[in-house]
């Protein structure tokens, strides 16, 4: 690239910036509407019409279409992404994903994170950070939680590139 790579991303979220026990309340929230749950649920070939048949779901105890849990999870992780993986080289994995309450069209999600672990990687230009994420809806019900490991650039190797 003709300009410095590091000018495209923030300078407060390299590996060196994360410490075990660090907590974050992420700045942005997102309302989950049809763009998120209808478009993305169908984009990924989820065939379950509990997510897209309003008439059938109106006759169930839920009373309406359900947001696909992994779309809720993706949106919550998305709300954390600039703070946790803007300078990522790779996302390595997820664990203990729990979908604790139903989410419906019109609900608004917010996200919280705690750093569980930081450790060296098998390459010296990056380290691994393990996060715990929580997603809440507007009444503060926890609807999603999970852990995530990200390979994050080290400032020492990448900030001058």
């Amino acid at each position, binding site marked *: 690239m003709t300009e410095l790579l590091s000018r495209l991303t923030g300078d407060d979220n390299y590996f060196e910036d994360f410490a075990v026990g660090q907590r974050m309340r992420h700045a942005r929230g997102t309302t989950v509407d049809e763009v998120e749950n209808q478009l*993305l649920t169908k984009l*990924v070939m989820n065939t379950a019409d509990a997510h897209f048949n309003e008439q059938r779901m109106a006759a169930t105890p839920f009373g309406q279409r359900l947001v696909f849990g992994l779309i809720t999870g993706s949106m919550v*992780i*998305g709300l954390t992404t600039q703070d946790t*993986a*803007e300078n990522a080289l790779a996302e390595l*994995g997820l664990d203990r994903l729990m*979908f604790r309450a139903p989410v419906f069209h019109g609900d608004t999600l917010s996200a919280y994170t705690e750093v569980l672990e930081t450790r060296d990687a098998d390459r010296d230009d990056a380290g691994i950070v393990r996060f715990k994420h929580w997603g809440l809806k507007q009444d503060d019900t926890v609807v999603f939680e999970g852990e995530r490991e990200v390979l994050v650039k080290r400032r020492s190797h990448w900030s001058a590139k």
Partner: protein
Amino acid sequence: MPDPDFSTFPLRAKGHAYEDFADGQVFDHHWGRTLGQGDSTLFAATALRFTPLYFNDEYARACGHPGIVVDPLLVLCTAVGLSVEDLSEAGGPFLGIGPVRFLLPVYPGDTLSARSEVVSRRESEKRPGFGIVTWRTEGRNQHGDLVVTYERTNLVAKKRAR
């Protein structure tokens, strides 16, 4: 009497009930899905995935990739999506998804396919009419390389509860 009488048309039912699963049973899921650059950029942008690797070709190349990397959350969601009819369409929510490992980057143009094995099944104590099933799913690219693996557990309706 409407003509034709639609009430006489047989239902083409989808999905499996709890009783249909046996330990060790394998499902090769339908369809596969080629993940294009538009899919990845659309998913990453809509899900607020502000990691430039997932939507900036030049940035991704400077990080050692041939171009943008498909958002791994799209890879996971697609592997799950392809498995839904076989595993979970017939009723019952997610209870959890266990260790998810992203083993190789997926690039635009790669074709993902998914395969699952039943790891365990048991009756639900809290929800009569339901069982709890855990599957291990593998997602592979067109070369047969594993790109994602995970376990997921769902509540699955029994036949009489459907």
